[in-house]
């Protein structure tokens, strides 16, 4: 099977959706001339003139304007440049984007996709490295996705653009360059928002993650396998609405749960997973739930410090071994 990068996979998704639906367009900072600061929009401005729009540095307009455009009948893709900047248009996200359908009694639909490049990519420090996906599953009315590989990057983005509900699409900056197998056009499986995937089956412990956290999940599963511990690895893919059934079923089988994400551990999405398992599958647990995430600290600049707020597969391996 052909191998392409995560960034290329998102370009394919955009191109296919823009080809199919003329109301799909993208706007954000540095998209048209630069092709996105991470090159994730490369080629699209030439292929779709006038539909990849460079905005002023006006995050409230980018999001609020996107919501207005969606209400007017288009399918906007809006780009947040860095996920860190998402605090600027927060009202546009949680009071406008998320609420208009409900508060207007179903008259409105907001087929908008908000793309937000996130994560620590080396030296971005406190305001250009954050993983903020955990803020949004708290808000009814929007959906939240965070794919972990090129194939999902493509199919999840397509699903997000095609969705008549607003979708926040978190794409990890480190993952952009990573290659993975993606089937040829027409041979892919469409992705249904809200579905998790059991990426690797195992009987001893369930490791749940998403986005770049999956590297830790997979790495830990490999390390544990050497000692005969069979980890079941679940890629959540969608954080809201999240696939409780898949996680609960796995925990009922393995009786142990480990959650990992790059985002800060405290009040991170892992807390929601842990709480849900405690609520709905408590009696199936044979060990306390393990959670891994960044310490309660902004992302530092110096490489020696930045390393300290990261999670590594060995951390999971050690913790999981302690469950037995």
């Amino acid at each position: 099977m052909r191998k392409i990068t995560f960034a290329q996979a998102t370009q394919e998704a955009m191109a296919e959706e823009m080809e199919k639906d003329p109301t799909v367009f993208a706007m954000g900072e540095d998209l048209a001339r630069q092709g996105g600061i991470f090159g994730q929009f490369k080629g699209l401005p030439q292929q779709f003139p006038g539909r990849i729009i460079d905005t002023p540095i006006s995050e409230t307009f980018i999001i609020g304007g996107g919501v207005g455009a969606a209400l007017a009948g288009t399918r906007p893709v809006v780009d947040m440049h860095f996920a860190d900047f998402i605090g600027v248009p927060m009202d546009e996200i949680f009071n406008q984007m998320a609420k208009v359908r409900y508060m207007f009694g179903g008259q409105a639909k907001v087929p908008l996709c908000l793309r937000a490049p996130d994560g620590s990519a080396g030296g971005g420090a406190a305001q250009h490295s954050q993983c903020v996906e955990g803020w949004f599953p708290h808000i009814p009315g929007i959906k939240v996705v965070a794919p972990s590989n090129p194939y999902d990057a493509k199919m999840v983005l397509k699903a997000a653009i095609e969705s008549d509900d607003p979708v926040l699409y978190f794409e990890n900056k480190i993952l952009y360059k990573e290659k993975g197998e993606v089937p040829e056009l027409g041979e892919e499986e469409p992705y249904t928002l809200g579905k998790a995937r059991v990426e690797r089956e195992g009987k001893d412990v369930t490791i749940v993650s998403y986005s770049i956290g999956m590297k830790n999940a997979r790495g830990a599963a490999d390390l544990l396998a050497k000692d005969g511990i069979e980890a079941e690895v679940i890629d959540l893919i969608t954080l809201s609405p999240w696939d409780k059934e898949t996680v609960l079923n796995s925990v009922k089988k393995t009786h142990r749960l480990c959650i990992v994400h790059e985002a800060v551990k405290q009040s991170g999405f892992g807390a929601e997973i842990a709480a849900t398992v405690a609520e709905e599958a408590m009696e199936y647990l044979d060990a306390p739930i393990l959670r891994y995430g960044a310490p309660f600290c902004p992302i530092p600049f110096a490489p020696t410090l930045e390393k300290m707020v990261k999670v590594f597969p060995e951390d999971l391996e050690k913790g999981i071994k302690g469950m037995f």
Partner: protein
Amino acid sequence: MATEVLMPKLGLTMTEGTIEEWKFKEGDTVKKGDILFSVATDKLTNDVEAEEDGVLLKILLPEGETAPCKSVIGWIGAAGEAVPDAAGDAAPAAAPAAAAPAAAAAPAAAPAAPTAHADRPAGAYVLATPYAKKLAKEKGYDLSLIPGTGPNGTVVAKDVESFVAGPKTSPMAAKLAAELGVDVSKLDVNGRVMKADVLAAAGVGAAAPAEAAAAESNDEKPVKVNPLRRSIAANMTNSWHTSPRVTYTRPVDVTAMKELRAKLKDGLKEQGIKLTYNHILMKVVAKALTEFPDVNASFADNMLTRHKHVNMGLAVAKGDGLIVPNVKNCEEKSLAQIAKETEGLIEATRSGKVQMEDITGATFTISSLGPYGITNFSPIINQPELAILGVCDMVDTPVVRNGEIVIRPMMNLCLTADHRVIDGVMGSKFLKRICELLENPYMLLV
């Protein structure tokens, strides 16, 4: 409405009890007055009667387990009646234990050694994962009997799954099997595996499971000692820290005592009474004590209590432990009475049937190691008494009498006395008086 079955408080000093045996199983009908269970305290075993007619709905404290006095250990009520679960009741029941005196609470506070269930403090919350609890419930196991191998001794699912895979086993037997490393599934037993079966398989006598465990097993994993041993340990430690003691040793010529016994024993035997030297010693010491009221006394908070009567304690080996029953008002009793009562007490003690009042209230104790060839030792005072007399072996010894060397049966008496009250002179005089009486038993008539 269901009625609680409580751990009884059998006497002032009892703080906790261990279920030795439930005489009924859950679901059985019991009548008021039936022996419901037997409980081992730190000193003895008592049968406890049911206080109600009804069905034994629930046994909360399994055989072999220990709980504080007054805690709920089971429920009696109408058939099918619902009762609160164990967890709901354990907490309030445990509260009085916390308020118990420090010495009594000490065994319960024993450090929780790593993994085995046997090291769980009595009545403690059983650490178990939710899944282990679910499995145990499904299989009908009592979680508190399952050894935990998880972190901090937590019972995890595999502990439950590997627990009692073989024949039906009594909880006590299962517990012992775990301690002694006996595979109950290999035992050739008709019906339920009982404690005795496990002990037999382990090749040890019922009296000494802890020693046997240590002998059988190569590893040095500590094992929980029985309540009697815990009590002895606590009492001896307490005494050691309480009484500044001096041991005075004095040889006594027991020629006269031997003659006395020889003259009396056959006559008494006809009355079914077996006379021993201990009985004579008890009579002699009781007489001496009436002359030394400060020795037949107890001391606490700078207050001296001189006892009106001599309640003569006699240390009796029981299994791997020691119990001190006492003969009340010994100074008033004849040698025959003393002999008769003492033998009865010893038998009751060794069979575990001794009554609480027989083992409390002693004012002085005699401990004899003579039969073991001991010629000198330093006994520890049985608190709150002030002195204890150690009796050694009788040895034919060359002694000088009237300028000539003669062979006489000599015996050392070792008096340990509490110097807070008994100074050297008093102690020596008291011991000297005992020796005079022994060497001149006719003085008992005075």
